């Protein structure tokens, strides 16, 4: 799908050229379009308008959860699994911008670099640029771009979140919340917030002490709790199956659940 990159530089100066190359799945055009959207450049909106509704086939999956819970490593393993199914994968990895300087270290990609030469995998890092909901303002548009470019799967990794960042529910159709063992008792599992937007909860690092207790507490309060050890690849097939099951069980487009959230808050 990712055809020749040669001599598209000139054509990337116009929205028409960029939109065409995005539809053809060309990496440079996809990346540049995301840059324009992030910058709030009017050309970005024009490209989106031209892309229209030519996408719609991707399954957008949000991977959110606590800092250091293993989101990036889990995504690395999910990429491998989806590639084995011959699915193409686009990844949007969000990390924090500094509230002081606006700078950022975008380091999620480091766990995914083994896929850097796979033409069926695309990874783009995004900084939050002042947004506090766990993703950046352009993330939703960037998902649309990857959808139009024809990726079967779009994985969105949020910043490491606490309890209160659930913007991912407005971006992804299936939301996976990743936690690690040993971070609190049953009351934590009962609390409102991030766990409520989770379609699937994953206890990663499940070979660590306290994993069984954490699993038990979460299972009392959530219908779909899985265990994984991402670095060893354990639990990945089960997670892939659960994500597919959610996709089939919930035919509603992704924005419906987020509208429900917004309506109930106002």
């Amino acid at each position: 799908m990712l055809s020749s990159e040669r001599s598209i530089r000139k054509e990337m100066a116009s929205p028409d050229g960029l939109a065409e190359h995005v539809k053809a799945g060309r990496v440079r055009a996809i990346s540049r379009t995301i840059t324009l959207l992030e910058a709030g450049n009017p050309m970005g909106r024009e490209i989106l308008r031209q892309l229209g509704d030519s996408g719609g086939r991707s399954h957008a999956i949000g991977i959110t959860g606590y800092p250091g819970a293993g989101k990036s490593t889990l995504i690395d393993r999910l990429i491998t699994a989806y590639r084995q199914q011959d699915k193409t994968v686009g990844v949007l990895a969000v990390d924090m911008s500094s509230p002081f300087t606006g700078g950022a270290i975008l380091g999620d990609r480091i766990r995914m670099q083994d896929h850097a030469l796979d033409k069926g995998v695309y990874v783009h890092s995004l900084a939050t640029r002042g947004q506090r909901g766990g993703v950046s303002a352009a993330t939703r548009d960037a998902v649309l771009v990857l959808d139009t470019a024809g990726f079967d799967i779009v994985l969105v990794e949020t910043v490491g979140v606490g309890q209160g960042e659930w913007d991912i529910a407005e971006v992804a159709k299936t939301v996976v919340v990743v936690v690690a063992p040993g971070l609190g008792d049953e009351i934590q599992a009962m609390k409102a917030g991030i766990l409520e937007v989770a379609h699937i909860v994953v206890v990663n690092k499940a070979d660590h002490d306290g994993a069984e207790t954490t699993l038990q507490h979460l299972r009392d309060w959530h219908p779909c709790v899985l265990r994984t050890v991402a670095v060893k690849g354990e639990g990945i097939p089960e997670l892939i199956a659960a994500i597919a099951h959610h996709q089939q069980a919930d035919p509603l487009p992704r924005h419906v659940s987020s509208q429900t959230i917004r309506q109930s808050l106002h």
Partner: protein
Amino acid sequence: MTTITAPLRILIGKVGLDGHDRGIKLVARALRDAGMEIIYTGLHQTPEQIVSAAIQEDVDAIGLSVLSGSHNTLFLRVLELLKEQDADDIVVFGGGIIPNEDIPKLHAAGVRALFRPGTTMADIVDFVKAIQPRA
């Protein structure tokens, strides 16, 4: 062209069989503190991986650290791959233990700046700040 106020995006990484990453991490952190978005690819990258990541990330520049002595091969390969992909508008700079006699050749090939032992962090930050965003 509309003015864009987005931060510079810089890919920072190490190429080849060289595990010394303390310096490059400090540089990454200093550039972060100067308000840039740093895509850090980590250790043991091939030139192919670096160039693929740079294009996927739409970076303005690539900064490479090479302390292994293989700077000639690695820098030239990165420049060659960027040219092949019509992406040689991405600035390439680097640092490491690079002998005097190699510098003119690397500059001539297109490496914009080389920072050697004794360089201050301010020199590196000032250089990167002056890079013109591509988009």
